[in-house]
C-alpha cells in the first residue's frame, strides 16, 4: 500500500510537470488525429470506387504500420530535426490505417438500393456522397477514429525519444534511473496518465458519436 501512497505523493509533488506533460501529450495527439482524419477520409473517398487504388492505399497504410516504431520516429530527424515534428509525422503515419480502412468499409457498406434510389431521384455524385454515403458511413468512420486515437495516444509516449513532447518523458526518466529511488513511480506516472488521457479521449469521441449519428442508424 505504501507504494501507492508514495506514487500519489510523487505525482502531488510534481503536479505542474505532470499536468504540463499531459497537456502537451494531448495537443500532440489531437493535432495528429485531426490531420490523420482529414487525410484518411479524403483518401478513402478518393479511392472508394476503384479497386486498384483502394488496394494500393490500404497496402501503403498497412506497410506504414509495420515499420518498427523506434525506426519510424528516427527516420525523419535528418529532414525535420528533433522535437515535435518527427513525432508528429511518425504518429500521423501510424494513425492512418484504421481510419482509412473504416472509411472505405463504411462507404462501401452503404446499401446499394439506397444509392440506387438516391441516384434515381437525381442526386448527383457529390450530393450522394455528402447527403447519403458519409452520414451512413459516419459511425464506421468514427469507430476507426476511436481505435486510431487509442493507438496514437499510447504511441505518443515514444515521442520523447526524439525530444518530442508528452508524458513519455516520465517513462524515459524512470528507465534511465531504473533501480534508483522513485524510478518506478516515474514510469507509472507516464503510463497511468497516458491511459487516462486515452480513456478520456475515447469517452469524448463516443459522446460525439452519439450526437452526430442519426437516430435512424443507431
Amino acid at each position, binding site marked *: 500500500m505504501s507504494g501507492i501512497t508514495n506514487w500519489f505523493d510523487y505525482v502531488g509533488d510534481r503536479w505542474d510537470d505532470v499536468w504540463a506533460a499531459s497537456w502537451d501529450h494531448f495537443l500532440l495527439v489531437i493535432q495528429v488525429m485531426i490531420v490523420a482524419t482529414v487525410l484518411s477520409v479524403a483518401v478513402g473517398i478518393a479511392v472508394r470506387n476503384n479497386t486498384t487504388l483502394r488496394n494500393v492505399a490500404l497496402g501503403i497504410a498497412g506497410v506504414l504500420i509495420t515499420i518498427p516504431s523506434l525506426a519510424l520516429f528516427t527516420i525523419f530527424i535528418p529532414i525535420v530535426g528533433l522535437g515535435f515534428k518527427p513525432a508528429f509525422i511518425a504518429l500521423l503515419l501510424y494513425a492512418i490505417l484504421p481510419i482509412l480502412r473504416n472509411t472505405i468499409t463504411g462507404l462501401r457498406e452503404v446499401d446499394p438500393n439506397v444509392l440506387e434510389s438516391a441516384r434515381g*431521384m437525381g442526386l448527383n455524385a457529390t450530393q450522394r456522397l455528402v447527403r447519403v454515403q458519409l452520414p451512413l458511413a459516419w459511425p464506421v468512420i468514427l469507430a476507426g477514429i476511436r481505435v486510431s486515437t487509442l493507438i496514437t495516444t499510447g504511441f505518443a509516449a515514444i515521442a520523447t525519444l526524439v525530444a518530442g513532447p508528452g508524458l513519455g518523458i516520465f517513462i524515459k526518466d524512470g528507465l534511465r534511473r531504473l533501480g534508483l529511488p522513485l524510478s518506478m513511480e516515474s514510469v507509472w506516472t507516464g503510463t497511468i496518465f497516458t491511459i487516462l488521457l486515452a480513456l478520456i479521449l475515447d469517452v469524448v469521441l463516443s459522446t460525439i458519436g452519439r450526437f452526430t449519428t442519426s437516430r*435512424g442508424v443507431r
Partner: protein
Amino acid sequence: MSQLDDNTTQVDETATEPMIRLDQVSKIYPDQEIPAVETLSLDIARGEVLVLVGPSGCGKSTTLRLINRMIEPSSGRIIFDGEDVTSINPDLLRRRIGYVIQQIGLFPHMTIADNVATVPRLLGWKKDKIRTRVDELLDMVGLEPSQYRDRYPKELSGGQAQRCGVARALGADPEVLLMDEPFGAIDPITRDRLQNEFLRLQSELKKTIVFVTHDIDEAMKMGDRIAILKDRSQIAQLDKPEHILAYPVDDFVDDFIGSGSTLKGLSFERVRDLELAPYPTIRHDAGHAQARRVLDAAPQRWLLVLDELDRPLRWVNESHLDRTDRPLRDLGHPVRAKVEPNATLHDTLEAMLTSMAGCACVIDKRGSLQGVVEIEALTDVIRRLRTNARKHYEEGNGSVAPTTGTTA
C-alpha cells in the same frame, strides 16, 4: 357493348404526342455479345399505366431504367414530353421522374418527412411549401403525418415503407412515375391492399406510369396496357389486358399468361354490358296453378319468386310445386347469387357456381331484380371477346410489335 370495337386504339391515336417515346433504343453491355435491349421502340401515352411484364432476364428492368437513364442507352433516342433527353444532364431528368424500386431504398438516416422531401429540396422549394407537400403526400398514401413524419425508416413495416417510397417518388409532383416491381417484396395481403390503393390514387392523379413486374396477374390488374416482353426486351404483344387474354398472339404469350386466361378475361367485363335474357318470375303471393303455367310456358326449369318490390326471394322448380301446397315464398331454395350491374363477370360466375339454379340474379341498389345471368350469356361473351380480338389483330390494329425492326 363491346369495348373492343370502339376504343381499341384510343390510347395510340388521340394522344398525338406520347409522354415517353423510346425510339429504336438498344442497350449492349461492353462485355456481352447479346444486347440486353435490342432496337426497342415504345410509346407511352399521357396518363396511362403501361406494364412491362416478362420472364426474368428479359430486360424489362433494363428497359425501365433506360427511361430515366439510370442505364445509358447504347443507341437510339429517348423522347420525354416531346423533348429529346438522350443527352441532357441525367440528374436533372431524374428529378422530373418519380422512381420506385422493389427494395425501396429509403434513406435510413433521415426521417420519413426528410425522405419524402428529397426531390423538393433538390429543386430548392421553400421550407413551408415542402412541409405542406410532405404532409399532403403522407396523407395521400395513408400514413398519418403527425404519427409518421418524424419516424425513421427502420420503424416502418414493409408495406408502410413502400407507401413512403411512393410518397417520396411523388415528392415534386412528377408527371411520370417509374416503378420496378414496387410490391414484389411485400406479403400477398398487403400487396393486394397496396395495389388497390395505388389504383385509387392513380384514378385521381392520372400520372404516366411505367410499371415493371414478372407477375402476369399483377400486370393484368394494374395495367391500362401491357407489354409482354421476351428476350432482349422484344415486345411479344402490346395491348389492353382484356385483348391479350382474349387473343394471345403466339405461344410465348399464351404460355406466359398461363392457364385460366378465359377466367381472368371475365374480370374485365361487367354485368351491365350484358343483354339479359327473359326469365320466368312470379310474385310470392301467386297460387301454385299460376306458377305451373308460367313454368310450363318457359324453357327454364326454375321459377324465380319475387316479393312485392321485385326483390328475388326463392328458386322454385316443378317438384317443389308437386310436393306441397305451402305458399311460394316458403318453397324451394333461397336466392343467394345476387350481383349488382357493375360486378365483373368473374364475380358473377363465382356467384352462379354457388347458385341452385346455376344463374345469378342482377339486382339494382334497392335489391329489385334487373334480370338473370345464365351460363350461356357468359359463353357468348367469351366467344364474342375472342372473335373481336382476333378481328382486331387480323385487321392489323393490334400492336404486336410496333416497328421493332430487328436490324441485328
